């Protein structure tokens, strides 16, 4: 399914932020908020994984229903997961398209990866001391 991906600081999640606070940064930034209708169309339930892909990469996120999200769009909190599939074009402003990247969303059985795994995929070496 083709959708427009919006991202935002986690603090911009409004009402949801309160419920997310106790959850780790990883869980928070790897959530894909979407409208219930879109989830129905994909045939997935809350908490199931989706594969989100753009021309720049692919990443597995966990779906969560949010009726404040317009159908046809998804919201992913600003962080390593969202950035994993955002491009570097800034349209002469220096600011990437954090709030408007065209992506596809599909149901998947693949597991979510950790932030460390994402970094390793990009060539990093996690530091864990």
């Amino acid at each position, binding site marked *: 399914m083709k959708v427009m991906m919006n991202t935002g600081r986690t603090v911009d999640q409004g009402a949801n932020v309160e419920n997310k606070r106790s959850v780790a940064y990883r869980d928070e930034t790897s959530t894909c908020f979407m409208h219930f209708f879109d989830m129905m169309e994909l045939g997935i339930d809350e908490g199931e994984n989706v594969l989100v892909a753009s021309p720049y990469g692919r990443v597995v996120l966990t779906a969560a229903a949010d009726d404040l999200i317009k159908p046809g769009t998804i919201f992913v909190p600003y962080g390593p997961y969202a950035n994993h599939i955002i491009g570097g074009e800034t349209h002469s402003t220096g600011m990437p398209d954090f709030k408007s990247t065209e992506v596809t969303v599909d149901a998947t059985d693949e597991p979510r990866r950790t932030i460390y795994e994402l970094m*390793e995929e990009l060539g990093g070496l996690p530091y864990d001391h």
Partner: protein
Amino acid sequence: MIIKDTVCPFCGCLCDDIEVTVEDGKIVATDNACTLGTSKFLGDHRMKSPIRRVGKEWKEISYDEAIDYTVDMLLDADRPLLYGWSGTHGEAQCVGVHMAELLKGVIDNTSSVCHGPSILAIQEVGHPGCTLGQVKNRADIIIYWGCNPIDAHPRHLSRYTRYANGFFLENSFRDRKVIVVDVRKSQTTNLADEFVQIKPGCDYAVLSALRAIVRGKGDDLPRTVGGVQREQLFRIVDLCKKAKFGAVYFGLGLTMTAGKYKNIRNAIELVDELNRHTKFTISAMRGHYNVYGSNEVNTWMTGYPFGIDFSRGIAFYNPGETTAVDILARKECDACLIVASDPAAHFPRPCIEHLAEIPVVQIDPYANATTAFCDVQIPVGITGIDAAGTAYRMDGVPIRTKKVLETAYPSDEEILGSVYARIQEVRQP
């Protein structure tokens, strides 16, 4: 020991009334600070010593070795990028500019991915603003647009707006109106006297509609604009025009959405228009405690607030070309020095892929996402906790942050100063 009037090095509010309790060389409690500030003051798990990546291993090295590596990396580079700066003090930023100049490198700060578009708008139409105290003492109407201060600037409401009594407002809660404009409900919208919910991406249209009404041309508007009822738009303009002093604060909800700097330009022009009827000001809710300082320092030293390319000897500025995301995504830079920020957590994928391919040194007290892409990381004292230095509040007021802890960590300024001195030996004998 209790240290009063400490300056909080978290957000652009730069609250300077924090009481910090220090026992046995550790901060054990804070008073007056918000949760964000408290967690920073009480933060733990600092990196103990400089580290270097050797193959698939991290190895502890000495500060001298780390400085050697940094100097060699920068001297060897054709087009080094010096990025970050919003989480350190002005004195360190000044060294950074000198260093970029001598290296003929590019220096950019985090504003290019936060309020860079706001700066572009200001460069087109100017900026009618004021200090926070002017708002606290006078403003009878506040508009928060595309920002959520309760979460991002928790004391903004209590120190300057909703709950802050001022000289001309003895009962702020009663006498001030707060309007919140956003695409979704948030904790801040719950505190508003008036919540304006607009459709995502429609900020520009709503701002234009408000301008039309202020100019007396509202009759031509459709029934709703950007999901907002015409009646509500008229009501807001009426409130604004009747106010004695209005203040607009805007956040990334306006700078990152479609339209980017054109949104901000429209908002500034609305405020300009309102000044023909009453007093109105507008200001950005700056995020990092000293991101505004990095703009100030860069400006007095180079003429430009961010994104400065010294490759031709002169200071050259062209956002979209000389800004960090573009330089990385185009794989232009061949070395990167990162100071007090975390691009690997905040930059798009192509930028991080390039970081992985080039030598990177990070100067930062903590391990973060960017650490994974470093060849060397140098831990330093935290400005405002174990190092003192100048920071500029979101309204441009400079405040000297305090050193409240004695630690062995060098400051950013000291590390950068050593690196710069060594570069001078080679490039400016």
